[in-house]
């Protein structure tokens, strides 16, 4: 084993010595050779900062132009449209138009709970009814109703009072249908008769 390793060392040794010799020669050469390059620099180019100065203006030879003012852009803030952007999801109404409501914004589906007197984007919740709520802004009132809610049902009823034969009393018939009220002619005539 020792004999073999000695043979290998004998074989490698001259090569190692040659590497070292070559490295040494080149190192000496490296110290002798210049380390920096020669680069062209244009010395004729002036390095003084150039400032443009108008001589005519200070002596009034040319009327100085007023600097134009850049037009100020007025960005109009869009007013929040309450009725078109909100959905009334739930109402918890108490007596005296008080209570809480849950509203949802159409744009981002965010829900928010409001109590009477609270503000939502400068709109104040002032009244809470069972099926709708009233907001106020700049002394204007805005009504927000529950979705799918029909118009208030029309009032419709009849009042009939028959004339008794014995007492010769009058017969009364009043029919109410929403805003219209019908009264029978006979009934009206009885008033005329009385006069």
């Amino acid at each position: 084993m020792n004999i073999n390793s000695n043979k290998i060392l004998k074989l490698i040794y001259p090569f190692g010595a040659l590497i070292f010799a070559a490295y040494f020669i080149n190192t000496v050469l490296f110290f002798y050779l210049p380390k920096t390059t020669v680069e062209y620099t244009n010395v004729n180019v002036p390095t003084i900062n150039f400032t443009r100065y108008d001589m005519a203006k200070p002596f009034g030879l040319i009327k100085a132009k007023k600097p134009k003012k850049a037009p100020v852009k007025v960005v109009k803030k869009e007013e929040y449209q309450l009725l078109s952007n909100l959905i009334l999801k739930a109402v918890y109404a108490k007596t005296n138009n008080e209570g809480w409501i849950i509203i949802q914004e159409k744009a981002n589906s965010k829900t928010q709970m409001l109590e009477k007197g609270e503000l939502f984007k400068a709109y104040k919740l002032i009244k809470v009814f069972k099926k709708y709520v009233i907001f106020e802004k700049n002394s204007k009132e805005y009504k927000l109703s529950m979705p799918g809610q029909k118009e208030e049902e029309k009032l419709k009823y009849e009042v009939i009072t028959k004339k008794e034969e014995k007492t010769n009393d009058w017969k009364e018939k009043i029919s109410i249908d929403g805003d219209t009220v019908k009264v029978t002619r006979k009934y009206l005539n009885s008033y005329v008769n009385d006069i």
Partner: protein
Amino acid sequence: MIKFLFKYLTYFIFFIFCIFLFLPKENIYYMMEKKLFEYKTIVSYEKINSGIFNFDVKNAYIFYDGIKFAKIQEVKTEMYLYEHKVQVKNFKLFDSFKALFPQNINNVEILHNVLTPKEVTIKAEGDFGLLDGKVDLVQRKLKLFLKASSIMKKKYKSILKQMKLKNGKYEYEYQF
């Protein structure tokens, strides 16, 4: 005896290989630049790429006496055990020198072979035509043979006048 010779020849080749391997090529290039500077010539703005057996210079501008003289696209140097080669590609003179010398040199090849150690061969091709020549390193003599192009014969007669015309080729000799 042959074994002995082979052994030392191997050592020698290995030593040369190691010399090339560790050679400070960039510093040698800087030394050449400084030598050129003595002749008012500066090589500037170039990109250097140094390998084990090659050394490349790209996009070099040559200034002579502070005037932009020429641009070289690429100079390739290859150093092998048996051969050294320098190749210059696309050497272009700036317009101000167009009247004095032909503007474009497409390719220049300088070769030094181990088999002919005394000689360096030169081959070039460009607007001037075809050029080949030899440098005798022992006698320190440069000999060039030019097969002039029609442009060279028309526009640069003054250069051709400095050469001897032999067998349709213009001959130029310089002792350094």
